[in-house]
């Protein structure tokens, strides 16, 4: 529930990319067609969505290995 709540808290344009690409399994090219935005926009929205989600999820998903944005790369 907390993970879905985190998903609900991010802007809807970002959420749409996450849901279409990761949950519905549309390719990024298809996501771009669905949302009628360039591929670059899809990539940047997903990148920003991921940063927001990492921050949102850090508190609840530590056991799953999810850390705050930036932390993963620095500590890897």
């Amino acid at each position: 529930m907390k993970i879905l709540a985190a998903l609900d808290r991010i802007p809807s344009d970002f959420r749409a990319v996450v849901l279409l690409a990761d949950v519905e399994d549309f390719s990024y090219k298809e996501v771009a067609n669905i949302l009628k935005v360039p591929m670059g926009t899809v990539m940047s929205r997903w990148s920003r969505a991921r940063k927001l989600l990492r921050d949102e999820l850090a508190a609840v998903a530590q056991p799953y290995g999810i850390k705050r944005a930036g932390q993963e790369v620095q500590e890897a």
Partner: protein
Amino acid sequence: MNTINFNEAVCKRILTQLDLYLSNELSVEANHEVVQHLKACATCSGELEARMRIKNLLRRAVQSETAPPRLRQWIEGQIHESGSRFSAFFSPRWALVAAAVAVAILGGVLAARWRTNRLYDDARAQAAYIRALGARLPRIETVGLADHLHCAVFRRFPQEYPVEAVAAQELGPQFVQLVSMVKEKMPGEYRVVMAHRCSYAGRHYVHFVLKSDSNLLSLVITGKQPGESFSEMEASSGSEVSVPLYEVAAKRFEVAGFESQGYLAFIVSDLGRKNNLQIAENLAPLVAGFLNSING
């Protein structure tokens, strides 16, 4: 892993390609470059793992959060009810197993339908979803799928729909006879929740929406436009009815199309191929015969 200190610019370039790598959308050369880089770069492979964890976590969360509480209660009620039904055929223990399997399938269908409605909650997103699914089908089959999605999937229906009282007005004298044909040929648990004329993307339809407890199905009819026919597709081989049926699937939706001289017709649902085809086989001969009779 033997790690190498890569130039920051190389890592930055690889990181921008990771999502495409994950969804298998890179060219062979680019894919090879990413794979080689990941073998040697702990920073980027750590980032890849982090992205995969988030992806899996989200997918599990959304897919396990199958339905709002009211729907979940309803599914639990169905388990109990199915258990009673199955107990006529199986021992109590196996009745419960059979009920659980049946309800798991049912729950999956309902969950997928609920997710679709949750994801595509405005007209623009719905139109985009219809385009995306249609892109995977022969153009002629998108005609039926689009109207089902637009008019049946993304819509709520009243509990009571007095089809006999409103059909003549909704369908007009030309198509009102279809109501009795549909009722005659559909399994008893289905009720007509909508019978009307509608239009989508500039095309006009006669549309029946039918529901049982958990199933949603459309009979979609539209006039042929110049050159439109299923003749270039291969008819379903298993079908034994006199009217050829042309099947396609897009995501969870099944479409079985057939035609008369002047009309295209489609049975569209998310009931699985076998059930959708069976219903199409029941309806197609009568409906196609009727449509031929009104061609003039």
